[in-house]
């Protein structure tokens, strides 16, 4: 396993009120993303645990783009990855943010 952690300044604070959300499954080529509203609204942290080594620069780029584009401020994000490709990672991150930005039912 390779572990990485990023803490970035987030230009867009997350909306909504839900405290947490989870999407995805840890299966080959897939990942799970757990999002918790646990940080100041201008910060986003991402922890990654991945079974595929050597993709650090790709993760860094994906995470940076995600934080720049999506409303990720205030979110603590934890990822368990089983070799997902960047497009899948981007999609899951967006799905997780959409879910947590929904109002608590």
């Amino acid at each position, binding site marked *: 396993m390779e572990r990485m952690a990023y803490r970035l300044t987030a230009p867009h604070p997350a909306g909504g009120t839900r405290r947490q959300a989870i999407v995805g499954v840890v299966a080959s080529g897939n990942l799970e993303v757990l999002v918790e509203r646990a940080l100041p609204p201008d910060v986003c942290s991402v922890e990654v645990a991945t079974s595929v080594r050597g993709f650090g620069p790709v993760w860094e*780029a994906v995470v940076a783009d995600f934080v720049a584009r999506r409303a990720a401020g205030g979110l603590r994000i934890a990822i368990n990855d089983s070799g997902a*490709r*960047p*497009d899948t990672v981007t*999609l899951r991150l967006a799905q997780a943010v959409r879910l947590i930005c929904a109002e608590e039912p």
Partner: protein
Amino acid sequence: MSGWNAQNDARAERIAAAGRYAAGKVVAPDVLVDFLHCVIRPGDRVCIEGDNQKQADALAAALAAVDPARVRDLHMVQSGIILPEHLDVFDKGIARRLDYSFSGPQSGRIARLLAAGKIELGAIHTYLELLARYVIDLTPQVALIAAVSADRQGNLYTGPNTESTPTIVEATSFKGGLVVAQVAQVVERVPRVDIPGDQVHFLVETGKPFHVEPLFTRDPAAITETQVLIAMMVIKGLYMPYGVRRLNHGIGFNTAAIELLLPTYGGQLGLKGRICTHWALNPHPTLIPAIEAGWVEQIHCFGSEVGMEDYVAARPDVFFTGPDGSLRSNRTLCQTAGLYACDMFIGSTLQIDLQGHSSTVTPSRIAGFGGAPNMGSDPHGRRHASDAWLEAGAQADPATPAPMRRGRKLVVQIGETFGERNQPLFVERLEAVELAERLGLKLAPIMVYADDVTHVVTEEGIANLLLCRGADEREQALRGIAGYTGLGRQRDPKMVEGLRQRGIILRPEDLGIDPLDADRSLLAARSMKDLVLASGGLYRPPGRFRNW
């Protein structure tokens, strides 16, 4: 003495020599090898029928079993190197020289035999090209072909998999060559005559059907969300603006996703009747929902597809069928249609370089071409002025006055930025080039040349190469949709943004597509069972594709 009939005389001699192994035209399977010793001579050009679908498997096995002391140095001229026996003949010295088109499962071994000097390579052709050379300078002396059944006069019934048989027989039989057909059964009367008996010299009754590979079956369950996203972009960003009505789809999950989105997403966009009405295409099971929803007017097929026989037979308004009710396919005609009569070819690829050349070759595998380079090229002989063709031409060359301007065929390559085992789609240098250097080939096996490609689509966006002015713009347009691959991360962000402003790069959001909406629930069928149900039970997938 006649100096002008040597070929026919030689054929007559061979037929006479083989006569003791035949009752009329019928040869028993147990004397097949001895029979071949009589009809094939060293140095002959021989075609074993077989492409990516049907195979003259019994005859291929028999040829691989002949005595290399009696039959040797053959020049194999055949579409497919598919069965192990197709290469066994080179291993054993029965054959020496090879001209072919496609080698799916044998692509690793063919590379090894080439490297070992066991094969003298003529060329790796496209299907249409090799079939064309059959009537110019690669005419077979012997053709070993496959059919479903025959009568005693040699009239052949090929069933839905007619494929290349008429072309092979035509080239061989009318030029002094000898045609041997394997059939499952010899019958009193064939259901329809696909090949007239006077063109066929011998028959072998094998008692079982020839092998056919279900190469065009894709299980909708394996289509990913990213492939759905790409399919949405293709429909909205290419099919809709160009109004693509005549087209060919390559094999793969990307095109299967497009087919399954037509009745759902395409329907929501109001495109029924405006796109995808006429096809050069095998009977793809994933096209069933679109056909059933009334999208498709007509399909001409290269070959058939295992399990689709009854469905096709029940839809004669859509497919070409014979008096027996079943499909009539014809590879030569359909390839010609793919080259000339279609406005678009769209297919998946494994590697694209920064000029836009694409290839499916890897260092250890030479898969060949099949028909993709025919479909995926712009035919300069075309004169049919369809809207899509004219529009593409105008984008490429706005300066030339319209009446003097060629149109362009739309040639679209699709891929995900990272493919299997996380291999990047975009590369600095194609592995095909390395391979050519290593094997001393005069030509690198490029599937689609850069100057034929008009669009490249990934999940990151569509790059419209027609609109690019100069090599720099092409390169940045490709880097701009290369996502997080190494080449993508090295793009010039300013230039890429400029290309996007000019509509050369279209991102999903530029098309009004939210990647979050790219969901598998958009697929008109999400499982093989859904396809069966959509066909009203007429489609019968092979066992390995079932989960019921």
